[in-house]
């Protein structure tokens, strides 16, 4: 038992899967994801779409917390911002609903940048305090602007109807939109986390003083990453309105911020595939535990946060790395012997 714990507690590099393996897995997974909605019940598709919604937020948090080492609990606020941009523009004002995505991204980026300018100068401890405060006041902020947001009563929507030529139902269409956005976001994060920006981010996470002497500007990089992650949270908020067709102040309580954090912790800090695993956990776990007690799902979030920190600090992705790493190594050794 101790040996297993030690193995999971060690930080490890991400697995370098052989090209053919990652390619086939990618094609099979994508094929399944494209085909599955056509033969499943609307409820299943809605849940899958929610996984995508959470995954988009998670990718932003992956950049911010996993790559750059900044903590934020305030992303629920930006998620709500995106949701209300969509509800007001596409719902109340009657704009084309897809237009809400770029608008929300721009608004989320701008607000995140302005918020981040002062906030990111703070120490990590202070940043966590400020963003927790932001998460706590989000519902009352929404209720304050009652004339636009309709506060606790909320806004019922009728958007994201599938075009007639597709012959799809709304749940299928919405899932495809969410899948497309998630895939695009994933590719974008992948590109960002490599190359110059990615190295700058990791440098700041591991040792800010050293990174600064190497010519990286902490404030610029942090503000950029923070704004990008809040923009992604806002985009996810728009997708959320497509899925639920309803927004109200009470959906954006502290619980939402905790769900986001749980997703990143369970999946594994600093792992991109881990984000998807975390999103699956956060979406499906409540439906498994709902039969026991209505508090059970929230309780699972709390217990998962504590338990993962002690048992698997690198999350499910860390576990996969600990198991997969030696396997891959052995395979390479065998390949070497054959030559």
């Amino acid at each position: 038992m101790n040996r297993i714990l030690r193995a999971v507690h060690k930080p490890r590099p991400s697995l370098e899967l052989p090209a053919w393996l990652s390619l086939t897995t990618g094609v099979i997974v994508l094929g399944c994801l494209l085909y599955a909605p056509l033969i499943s019940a609307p409820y299943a598709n809605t849940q899958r779409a929610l996984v995508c919604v959470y995954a988009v937020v998670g990718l932003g948090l992956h950049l911010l917390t996993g790559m750059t080492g900044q903590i934020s609990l305030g992303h629920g606020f930006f998620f709500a911002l995106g949701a209300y941009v969509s509800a007001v523009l596409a719902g109340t004002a009657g704009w084309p609903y897809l237009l809400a995505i770029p608008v929300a991204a721009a608004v989320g980026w701008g607000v995140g940048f302005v918020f981040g300018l002062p906030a990111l100068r703070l120490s990590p401890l202070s940043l966590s305090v400020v963003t927790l405060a932001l998460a706590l006041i989000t519902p009352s902020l929404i209720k304050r602007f009652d004339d636009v947001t309709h506060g606790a009563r909320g806004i019922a929507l009728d958007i994201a109807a599938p075009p007639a030529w597709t012959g799809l139902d709304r749940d299928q269409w919405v899932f495809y939109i969410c899948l497309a956005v998630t895939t695009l976001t994933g590719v974008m994060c992948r590109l960002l986390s490599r190359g110059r920006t990615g190295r700058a981010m990791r440098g700041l996470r591991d040792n800010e003083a050293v990174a600064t002497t190497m010519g990286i500007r902490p404030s610029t990089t942090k503000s950029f990453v923070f704004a990008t992650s809040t923009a992604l949270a806002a985009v996810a908020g728009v997708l959320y309105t497509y899925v639920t067709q309803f927004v109200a102040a009470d959906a954006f309580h502290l619980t939402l911020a905790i769900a986001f954090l749980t997703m990143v912790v369970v999946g594994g800090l600093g792992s991109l595939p881990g984000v998807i695993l975390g999103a699956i956990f956060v979406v499906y776990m409540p439906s498994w535990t709902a039969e026991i007690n209505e508090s059970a799902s929230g309780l699972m979030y709390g217990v998962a946060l504590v338990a993962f920190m002690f048992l698997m600090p690198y999350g499910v992705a860390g576990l996969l790395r600990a198991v997969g790493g030696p396997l891959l190594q052995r395979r390479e050794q065998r390949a070497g012997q054959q030559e």
Partner: protein
Amino acid sequence: MTVLLQQILDGLTAGVLYAAIALSLVLVYRTSKLVNFAQGELATFGAFLTWQFHDWGLPLSVALPASVAVSFVAGALMERTLIRPLLESSNHLGLFIVCLGVLVTLLQVEAWIWGYQVKEMPNVAEGPPIALGPTMISRQNVVIIAACVLIAVALWFLFQRTRFGLAMRAASDNTPSANLLGLPVTATLTFSWGIAAVIGTLMASLVAPNQFLQPGMLLPVLLYSVAAATLGGLDSPVGAIVGGLVVGVVENLAGTYVPGIGQDFKQAVAFAIIMIVLLARPQGLFGSRTVVRV
């Protein structure tokens, strides 16, 4: 004029609660260098325990000490089991996540056991409100203020007049030297967490009749208390008390007199206080300045 005085008095009464929770945040911060976000929820849990003991038929004079004793053990246990291992590996992200995990767990356990129905908690002091000049204050609030003063005096005595308090101050001031001197550093850590939980439970049980005892009762208070502790300086007990009173008064006056804020939006005042203090004077009013050598 009477309205203004009454508002200030109400603000002070609310501020006493913020000050008490801020005091427990400060106690924990001084020893463990972390803001325990679960502090408010620990206190709510303690209030639920008091209610439960009372509901089982114990008089309040027994139920309150009983739940206070339980929460001392619970706070100490939390430090020993959950916080210490992460503190030793100086895993700050982990500590933050564990505190939030404990917050959520307590919130949901409360909801599971007691439900969201508001519990009727009896007042410690019954009777008509007391007139103070043109203003009125309820007897329960007088008890709450007295309890807070008592806590402050007891802590002052502990820190300034006892050997163990001296060891606590030494341990938070310079942990390695305190260790080398053979002071019981780990015991002071555990004791601080226990005391912090005791303060929370005592105050939460006293304010429960006014605050509607239900899961998450002190979540809004947590925000104000964090603001109070930030304003006073995270490592200063005096600062926590002054900060709590200031935040209580400012929040109450802003809610009444500043147009556009109103009763629901008062929380934004706390947020603004946190943000402004952290940017303009990160060490707060009474906190000690940290200088980092690179």
